[in-house]
Structure formats: C-alpha cells, structure tokens
C-alpha cells in the first residue's frame, strides 16, 4: 500500500513537471489590436487611396491654435484682450515669448502633418509598385505634395528659416532660408502639376473638393509672391484664370456660410461635416475660438464662442471710410460696446444700419469682456446649424485659398510689372469690387490693389500681415499702440524645439 502511495506521489510530481515545461512557447505571441504596417498587403491596390485619405485627414485635423497664431499679427485682426492666453495677446502686440505653449504647439501641428504626409507618400509608393495604373499613384503622391507644400509655406511665413523634412528618413539638421523653402515649394508644385487632374476641385468624383492642378498653381503663386517674383505669380494665376473653371460666389455673405461649401470660388478648403444629422458623428473645427463670447442666438441652445479673434478698429474704420457694405457686414460681428467705441470718433457718429449687434441672420451679439468685435467670416448663423447641433460654427468648412485671392494676386503682380494675357489688373480688381457692390476702377495702382486685398481678405490666414511684411510697410503694422520693425517679422523658435534640435540651438 505504502509503495503504491509513494509511486503515485512521484507520478503526480512527474506529470506536473512535464506540464510546466510546455509553457514557454507563448512568449512570442504578438500584441493584440494593432495593425503592423509591415502586414499591409500592398498588392491590394484598391487600398492605395487609404494613405491619401489619411493625408487629407491630417491636413483637416488642424489644431485650433495653428491658424490664429499664423494670422493674428496683422492690422486686420486683434487677439481680444482680457482673460486667458495672455501671451497670444502679447504676440498680437509683437511681444514674443519663446516658451509660450502655442508656438510649440503650432510648430508641431504643422510639422507633424508634414511628416505624416511624407509617410503617406511612402505608403502610396509601396502600392505603386503593384498598381496597374501608375499614373493614379503619381496623382495621389502629387496631391499629398501640394498639401505638404502649403503647410511648409505657413511654417516659413511664421518662422522664416525652417527645416524641410525629407520624404523618407530622418529630418536633416539643416535650416533652409525662407527663399530656399519657397523655391523648394515651387519645384514641388512644378513636379506635381502634370500629374494632377485638370478639374475644379468640386468636379472631382473620387475626392470631391480635393487637390487639383489649380490648387498646386495657387500654392505656387503664393510662394512666388513671397519671393516677390511677380512674373512667377502672374504666370501661375494666369493659368488658373484662363482655365475658366473658377468664379466668384455672387453673395459674399453666403460664401462664408454653409452655402459656401465647395463653392465655385474655392480652390482649397478644409472640409468639415456633421453629415446632416443632429446628433452623432461630427468632424469639425473649433470655430468657437473665433466666435463672440456672449450672444443670444436665434436658435436657442446654440453655443457661443471664445472671443479670441477680434477685427481691429483700424480695419473697421478703413472699411467705413470706403463705404464698404457687404464685405464689412460679412467680416465683422458688432457688439454694442464695440459700436460705442467706433462712435467715440465723431467722424463715425452715424453708422450704416447694418452696423448692428444683430446679424442679418437674426443672432444678437451681446457685450463680453474679452473683445469689442468678433470675426464674421468664421461665424455660422445659428439658424444654419443642423437642428440638434449646438457647437459654434460646426459643419462649416474652413476656406483656405479662394479665387478672389488669385485675382488680387494677379492684379498686384501686374501692377508691379509682370505681364499676362489672361486678364488685366483692372479687370481682376473690378471683378472683386463688383461682387462687393463697389464701382469699377481704372488703371489700378499697387496701392489700390493692396487696399482691395485688405478689404477683401481680412481675417483670412494672415494674408494682410504677410503682405505688409513683404512690402516692408511696417508703419501699417504699427497701429493701435503697437510698434513693428524688421526684427519682429518671425516668431522665435519654440524653446522646446530649441532644446531638442541642434541646428536651432546653434542658430541661437
């Protein structure tokens, strides 16, 4: 009996040891719930569009601070004064803080998308080797390059000398001057243009509103403008104009509302959507940043904004002096406090009736401490919100480049000596003026074009600021207590980046 028991004992022991030794193989199991890039099947070329959509998603998911930081320093717009984000307000006054989080965040926001788009290009190239239609792959790559070019352009406008991340491999530790960056962008656009569809973006069937040949031309024109290569500007804009695919949206007010989505006028826009439903999925931008902090919306429960983007008194008076109507009404939301501020100047004691704290869409803008005015171009009337949605401005698109800017760049280039057979400077300016309800001009001067740009493109992407910097019209930027000089053109590199990137450290 004892022997049997003993035998059992060792049998049990032996069985257990045997089991234990079989457990080791599990250590090589892969992680769950991940797609490893190496596992992607590039022979399935139907998916070649996926990385491109990813690039559009990157471009669209703009952080709310990116564009305001790019745009706030012009004499068209102020930061709004009281409250938080003091260093944003200081930036508007040309007092820069290298440690301010917004600088770093905007830098990273723009660069991470450049790097993301580079990786999308790498992915499309992987598919390309198996693709039957190689030119489609080239088109996709070219679309991504245009988006990337636009982002690089913004980076260089804000910081001057910047890095150009290569399409593959690590970023080389070289700072390129603004001139070099613009030349790079122009070369990139030239590479891309032949591969891109000859369509208005809204005519595209695969990616409606996506990049076409004209988007690339527009980016190329802006890069040439930065270089003061006015013939280059005229050549690019001429091609856009001659295509006759673009026209101005007749109603300026509606251009910046739901009506303006994929308008004939838009050459590049960031698309957002609530998909027409009152609840659920919503891909949107934080338009609240631009909106008034206090309002009584026509549709109850509609959310107000944050009040961080205030049209300047200078701009409003400039517009009143010109007897502007629809453009002023569209660009500015007035509060009673703001109206009183305008009227302090006896010259403006009587104001046109549209200068009212109630918009034509029936929303009443109440006084709020941060600012006197809010941006009208970023305003979506509460009645245009999809019922059920309450976020300020949601479902609106963000217009990036529009035909009016092309016409005015074209006109400016011609007045500065460039030549074109596509359209005269007078014709271009008068197209824009006509839509604004203004009388035509003859023999327009550069100064008149610049005024027209100011009136037309205020609050849009800092176009005014970069024009003034390019033309060295620093006195225009020295307004309402500010003083601007050439040393203040570029923001300091974000300290967090300086601490990380040797080339920035050396430059310091």
């Amino acid at each position, binding site marked *: 009996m004892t022997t049997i028991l003993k035998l059992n004992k060792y049998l049990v022991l032996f069985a257990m040891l045997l089991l234990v030794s079989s457990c080791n193989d599990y250590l090589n199991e892969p992680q769950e719930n991940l797609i490893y*890039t190496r596992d992607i099947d590039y022979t399935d070329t139907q998916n070649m569009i996926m990385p491109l959509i990813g690039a559009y998603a990157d471009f669209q998911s703009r952080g709310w601070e990116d564009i305001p930081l790019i745009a706030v320093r012009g004499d068209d717009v102020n930061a709004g004064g009281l409250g938080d984000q003091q260093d944003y307000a200081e930036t508007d006054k040309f007092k820069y803080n290298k440690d301010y989080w917004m600088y770093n965040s905007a830098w990273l926001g723009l660069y991470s998308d450049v790097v993301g788009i580079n990786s999308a290009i790498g992915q499309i190239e992987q598919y390309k080797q198996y693709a039957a239609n190689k030119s489609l792959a080239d088109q996709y790559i070219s679309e991504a390059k245009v988006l990337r070019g636009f982002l690089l352009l913004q980076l260089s406008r804000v910081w001057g000398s910047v890095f150009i991340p290569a399409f593959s491999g690590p*970023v080389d530790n070289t700072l390129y001057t603004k001139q070099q960056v613009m030349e790079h962008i122009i070369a990139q656009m030239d590479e891309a243009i032949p591969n891109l569809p000859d369509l208005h973006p809204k005519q595209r069937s695969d990616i409606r509103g996506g990049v076409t040949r004209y988007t690339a031309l527009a980016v190329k024109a802006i890069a040439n403008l930065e270089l003061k290569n006015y013939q280059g500007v005229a050549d690019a804009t001429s091609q856009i104009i001659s295509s006759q695919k673009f026209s101005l949206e007749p109603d300026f007010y509606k251009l910046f509302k739901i009506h303006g989505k994929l308008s004939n006028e838009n050459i590049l826009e960031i698309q957002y959507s609530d998909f027409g439903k009152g609840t659920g999925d919503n891909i949107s931008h934080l338009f609240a940043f631009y909106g008034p902090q206090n309002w009584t919306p026509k549709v109850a429960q509609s959310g*107000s904004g944050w009040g961080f983007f205030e049209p300047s008194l200078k701009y409003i008076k400039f517009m009143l002096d010109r007897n502007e109507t629809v453009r002023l009404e569209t660009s500015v939301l007035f509060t009673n406090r703001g109206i009183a501020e305008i009227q302090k100047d006896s010259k403006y004691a009587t104001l046109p009736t549209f200068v009212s704290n109630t918009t034509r869409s029936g929303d009443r803008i109440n006084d709020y401490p941060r600012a006197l005015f809010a941006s009208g171009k970023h305003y979506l009337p509460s009645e245009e919100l999809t019922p059920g949605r309450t976020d300020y401005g949601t479902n609106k698109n963000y217009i990036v480049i529009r035909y009016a800017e092309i016409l005015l760049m074209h006109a400016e280039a011609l007045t500065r000596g460039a030549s074109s057979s596509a359209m005269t400077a007078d014709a271009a300016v008068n197209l824009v003026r006509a839509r604004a309800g203004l009388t035509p001009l003859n023999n327009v001067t550069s100064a008149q074009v610049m005024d027209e740009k100011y009136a037309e493109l205020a609050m849009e992407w800092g176009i005014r600021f970069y024009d003034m910097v390019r033309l060295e019209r620093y006195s225009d930027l020295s307004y309402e207590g500010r003083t601007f000089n050439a040393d203040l053109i570029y923001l300091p590199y974000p300290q967090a980046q300086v601490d990380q990137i040797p080339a920035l450290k050396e430059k310091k």
Partner: protein
Amino acid sequence: MKKLFFLFSFILSVTIISAQQRTAVSGKVTDKSNLGLPGVTILEKGTQNGTITDFDGNYSLQVSPQATLVFSFVGFQSVEQEIAGRSVINIVLQETTLDLDEVIVVGYGTLTVKDLTSSITTVKNEELVKTPSGQAMQALQGKVAGLQVVSSGAPGASPTVRVRGIGSYPGRNAESPLYVVDGMFFNSIDFINPSDIATISVLKDASAAAIYGVRAANGVILIETKSGSYNQKSEIMYEGYYGMQIAQNVLKMANAEQYTNMALESGSAADASYILNAMQRYGRSRVNPNVPDVNTDWYKEILRPASIQNHGLSFSGGSETATYSIGVNYFGQEGILDMKNEYERFNIRSKVDFKANDWLTIGGNMIFSNAMNYGAQNSAWEQAYFAVPILPVYDEENIAATPVRYASAKNMGYRGSQNPMPTMDYNFNRLKNRKLIANVYAQIDIIPKKLDFKSTYNHSFSALNERNVGLPYTIDDLSGRPLATINKSMSVYSEQSWDNILTFSNTADRHRYTVMAGTSFRDDAYEGLWASGIDFPWQNEESWYIGQAVTKPEDGVGDGGMRQYGFSYLGRISYSYNDRYLAYATFRADGSSKYQEKWGYFPTVGLGWVLSEENFMRDSKLFDYLKLRASWGQLGNDKLPASDGASTTSVVYTAIDDERIAGHKTEDSFSWLKWEMTEETNVGITARMAKSRLSVDADYYIRDTKNAVIGVAIPFTRITVMRNAGVFRNSGFELALNWTDNLANGLGYSLGANIATLKNEVRDLYGQPYLDGGQAEFRQRTIVGSSLLAFFGYETLGVYQNQAEIDADPIAKANNLVPGDFRYKDQNNDQKIDDDDRVVLGSYFPDFTYGFNGGLTYKNFELSVSTFGQMGNKILNRKRGEIIWTNDLNMDADLAKNRWHGEGTSNKYPSSAGLRKGWNQKMSDYFVEDGSFFRIQNVQLAYNLKNVTLTGVKLPDSRISFTAERPLTMFKYNGFNPEVANGIDRQTYPIPAVYTVGLNVKF
C-alpha cells in the same frame, strides 16, 4: 548509529520520568480577551513530556512536582511557570506583536522575523478593522513608514498607494505597487473586505520584493486572507458597524457681501451690471442694501451626511485533517455628494485545506465580489466652488429651466449657468464590478518536514459593466442637455497563473537553511466593447438601452483586447548560522510576451548580523536583540504599455463632401520598450530593548530606476515615443518604534511612532534637460536634479503697495503695473520678468511623513488613538487658477477677505482688479501652496463583554466599539482637504470624517 543513540536516550528518559513521582496539573489557557486557546503546546521543561490544549483551551498533564511548564503557541509569547505545588494553572498568553519567532509570509514561502535581512512591515487584522472603510489599504495610512497612502473620499475608490516614492514617470498608471492576495497578483484590492484579511505585509526593499521580479519595482504588498486552523473549535462570528460620514474642513467661500465687494472692486463694468441684475431679479439684502438678497452657500447645497455600514458573518474551524473559513459580507457606503452616489459590495468567500493522506494536502480558496458603484459627477465640486453666492438654487421665474426651475446665472448676465444642481440630478454613472478569484493547490510532502512540492493554479476573472446616462434638462435658453445620452462599456479580464514550487528546509547543527525553486506561468487577457446612444425614452430606467436610442454614433463604438503571457523561474536561499549570521538571496527570471526583449533577470542578496548573539554583546544591558541588515537587489516594473516594436497603421476618418471617409495613417515612429529596472540598496537595524518592550526598526535606502520609461519627443512630430531612457532616484530614511508593556491590575499600554523621509530626484532624461508636463498655464516640469513633475513658475516677493514702489522698480514700470499687483523675483537679474525667471516651486511628494499611535487596555476596555502627518508637499490650487479663463466667478473667503485693497492690506494676494490681470495670473507660488497637514487618524474605544450571563443564559462574547476616523485634520492649504494624489486640486472628492458604532459577536 546516531539515531539509535537518540532512541535509546529517549526510552531511557521516559523510563526515568515514569519512575519518578507524578503529580497532575490542569488548567485553561486563554488569550487576553479570555478566550480559550486551542492547540497550545505545554511541555515539561527539559523533557519530551507534554500535551496540547483542547478546543476550549483546557489541558491536563502528569508532571514531576518540581517541574516547570512551558506554554507556547504560534503568535503568542511563551510563558514558563513553576508548578510550585499547584494543581490548577490557568495561563493568559500575550500575543507577540514583537516576537522575533513570528512567522511571516515572504512570497512563495514563509520566514521567521529573526531570519529576515530585509525590510518588511506586517499589519494584522485587528489593526485593519479599526478603520471603517471598504478599502483595506486605507487602514495603513500613517502606520507603515515609507508607505504613502493618499485617501480618496469617493465611495468605493481605492486610495493611492506608493511604496518608497515613485520610480516610474507619473500619470501612466505604472506607479502602483503589486498586490499579492493569497498568491494571486492584482493591481488593486478594492474587491476585498478588510475584515477578511488576516495580515497585510508591505515588502519595502529589494531583498524582500525581488522574488516578484518584473512586477516588484513599485513595492509589493502581500495579503493573506483568513483561514481556519487544524484542531480549532468551530467559530461563528458576526462583525459589523454602522456610521455616518461628515464632510470635514468644508472650504469657506466668499459670501454674497464679500463676493459683491470683489466684483465691484474689479473695475469691470460688466461684473457690476451682473450684481445690479441680481438685485433687480432677487431683491436687495435688508442688512446691506447694496448686496443682492441671495446668499447661497453652494457647498452646503451639494453636501450631505452619508451612511457607511459593514456586516459580515464568518465561520471557521478545523479538524485534525481539515480546516475551513467561509464567510459572507456586505459593505455599503453613500457618498457625501448629494446625488446618486453610492457603493455597495457583497462578498462571499471560502478557504479550505484538507490533508488527503500523509503526503498530500489539497486545498482551495474562492472569493466572489459583487460591487455596484454609482460614481459622483465630479464636476459638481468645481461648479459649487465657482457658482456665485448671489445665485439662488431655485428660481421660479426661470421658466426656461426644465424639469426643475433651477436658477441660472445666465439670467444675471454671466456667461455660464453655474448652478451645480442639474449636474447632480441628471447624471447616473453606474459601474458593476464582479470579480471571482479562485485557486486550488496540491502540496506533496516528498520528505516529511523537509522537502515539499506545491502546485497552485489561480484564476482571477472580472467583469466590469459601466453605464453612464445623462438625462435631458434645460436650465436656460442656452444651456442644458437637449437629448438623453447613454454610454456603455463592458470589459472582461481573465488572469491565470500556475505556480510550481519546491521547498527544502533543514536544520543541521548550527546551520539552518531553506532552499526554494519554482516556476510560474501567467496568462493575462482583456476584452472590452463599448458603444453609445443619443435620444432614448429616458423616463423609465428599463428603457436605458442603446438599442432604444434614435442615434448610435459610429465614432462611439469601439473595442479593445489584450493577451499577454509570462513565464518565470524563481528561487530563494535563506541561511542562518548559529542564529548569528544570516544570508538571503533570491533570483527570478521573467519571460514576457509584452516586449521584444523577452527575458529579464532580477537577483537580490541580503546579509544579516545578529550582534546580540555575539559574545561581546551577550551581556549588553541595552539590547535584548540587535541585528544589522543590508540588502541589494534589482527589480522590474512592467506595468508600462506593451512595446509596439514596429511601425503601426491606424484607421482615421475625414469628411469629404459631407461623407465620413476612412483612410490610413502610418506612424513611422514607434515605441521600443522593455520593463523598467530598479536597483535598490537598503541598510537597516532591528533591535529589541528594555526587556523586549521596545522594538526598533530603522532603514535607509537608495532606489534607482535605471531605465525609466520616459517620453522622448520625436522632433517635428507631436509624438513622444516611449523609451527606457530616464534615471530616477528615490532615497529615504525610515524609523519605526514600538513600546508595549503590561502593568499590574490589568492595565496595558502601547506606544508607537514611525517617521519616513523621501527624496525624489530625476538624474537623467536621455540627455533632454527637462520634460514638460501638466497644463501649459500651470506648468509642471521634470528637470534633471529636481523631482518628478515639479511645479514650475515664478516666485512672488509680495505685492506692490504704493505708486512709489512701482516707480522705484523698472520692471513694474515696464509692465505698467499698479499697486495691488504681484512683485516677482527677477531670478536672473536681467531687469525683466520673463519665462527665464521661472524656478521649481515644489513637488507634490511629501518629503517627511510621521505617525504616532497609542493604545491602552484596562480590564474590558480598550482605547486606541493614531495620528498621521506629512510635510513638504505642495498642492496646486487649480480652483483659484480657473480665474485665468473665467474671471467673474466666486472665490474662497480667505482670498476675498485678504485681498489687497489699499496700502498695507495684503502682501500675499493681489487686488480684485489685479486677480484678473495676466501679470498676476502667471504660474507662481501664489497658486502653489503648502500641503502639510497633521491629522488625528483614528480614535477607537471598545468594550469587551465576556462571560456575561443574563437571567441565567450565557451571552455570547461580544465587543462593542465606537470609532472616530479622521475626526480632526489641521492644515493651512486653502482647499477642502490636503490629500490630493497628484497635487492638482481641481475637483478632488473631499475626504469626510467617519463616526461609527461597531459590534462583534462570537458564537
């Protein structure tokens, strides 16, 4: 030959004894509460003659008339008694809290205290149950030097526990210690009923914890649940308490008059108009007609006294071949936030051991915990802080408010509705947490008493169902929730392990040693699924289902999953020579599927020298026992995320022509990680002095995380990838003193004290000078040479008092400052205040903690008091910081009263107008306050009812107790409570005082 000699001498001695005259002795052995102790060994000194007590503690024995009896029992102090002619000897044994022969668990085995070379603190059940809490770890607050416990006031929430600082970058859920419950691994022990725990042992140093290898670096806390004992009379026990939780140190907010004053002094026309609107809407105060006739104390509105109760019934006992311990327990706790905020837990458990035959013991352990938690809507805390006192709770004229006519501050002109009541009324956050843990084991005695083999299979299975429902309401034309919302998630966790352990122990001559070797296999899996719905019939809870919702957003649907395997080899040697020299070593090799590098190796060694056993110390009057200890070891932390190890691609969505279109986003940067390795050196002493009445344990440690996982920013991307690249150090000194004595007349007392210091230091960050953390406006920075996530900002030097001071200071002039603004320290003396003038303002880690406790027993009365305090930690008063964004809200009374409002009125706070200026809103030491506090942690008075008969019927032995938990906390911080785990006080759930009445009855 030797054996023969033994046998011979044994027979001889028995013969000799039996030849002598014998006398009978009998009696009863009891513990100090007069309960019979079964199984006590009674030996006639110097002989093999002896017996053990029966179930009731009775014994009888034949001994020689000159004999001395030795009574001994595990966990009690041995007692020697000369018979001296007596025939009845009743003995009361004292428990040996200080006893060096006490056996404690050390992970995959046990060890006696005297053989320890490491730092382990054990807390027993009777200490744990003094704290009325659902969370056992709460009871350890202030009791264990080097263990930081940060309470949480929310019902059902576990306290934050840190063993010897933080060795991993905070905020990744990777700092908490490992809990080992009866051999099973857990991240939290929120499912255990504290009174079911027999002991909690905190393994503090590397030498103690290293046997847990890759899971040990944050410290290990071993929990043994209660079990029965062999030959134990069956015992039925009721344990319960009922009590109330009362909010303590409720922060005083500015009242209507103070608030009105601040608003008017701010110089803002808008704010003045809101006050006017309030007076028009609600009338003027009769006391001060310039103040609206509303004075709401919002904290009073949202707080309530809340009940707490615990009831448990347990059965335990054992025969010669089996032991059992089974029980049921109910714990219920309401939250002090006046909404559906409560926690209930129902537990059942059983533990059995069975000696199947002379070589095989089998057993099993099962705990089922069924908890339901209605979580607080924590934003209510913040809203109550900010809501202006001139806003009433209700406003019958506010017809836009549905379904209840709550008042909205928007009606006075304010930006937000402010009223916290809808937040509490219309949110229901339910979490069901059901957990089953089960294990079975078989132990084979290969060589009896020497070599055994134990195989244990454990499975812990949890199902978490979370349902958060928001009901529709409006509070004014602009705010509310138009449609009902529901979010649901279900997760299942399954964690299995299989341990096989071989243990050999032997004593030969002066050598005593134990050798253990084993393997452990782990299989951890998780699966989760979640979805949400909008707009469903919400009137009845039966219809709170996503299926009933009109909209089910696509981006609200998701799932997750994880499966990880581990395999480990482990071993331990502990050796004692002549009880004088001790050596201890463990080794663990951990293999894991989580990382590309599969295997980690974690060794430790410990040495001990018992000086009191040396000849030169033998006659020491000072020390009864003195041991020097030193240990070194390496530990791992694998709580970090798994390493991706290669580029990954994820699905993203964008809008194209009002369609939601999917795309791919490929990340070329990826994490490449392994576990963190911590190396720790510990030196300490253990001493017993003054006839063993005083015990001293002191330790000094240095604990270096050699390859801490930190975010390494990839330039040009928002991505910070995780890399093993940081070096963090925690070091500190710990001292625990305990004095126990029994005086005549049934009076006994004990005194204890413990202190601990902690220094947390960052030593390397992969060459990066710092890592930024926290919110940009309230920067926390991890800087080499400073502590993790230290608060970082400006140092204030007071407030400018008059224009002369402004004029004299170029900085003040350059920034257009006025009297009532802060004066900041120009750290670099460049006559400018800019970001380069920021400095470290302090850390949220306390650098000194201390606890005192005392106990007094007199006859049937017991009184105990414990206190706890900490010093040196800072709290970011983030509530005050909110003024950066919205400057017309309420503020605390201290700020309102002590604001600068004229020369000499304050050098601490700016003026009301100044509070709203960017200059004064910079992150500075104005926002970062001292978090030191001292607290009376626990006071308990108990009365033991024993052998009481009522009308001839013997009543069961009972114990009645009155407990005050945290009745008094003293601190300077301008907040509700100074216990804030991460140092950022924004909407921390306040920690209430608890008063309970308890009853234990033993049948």
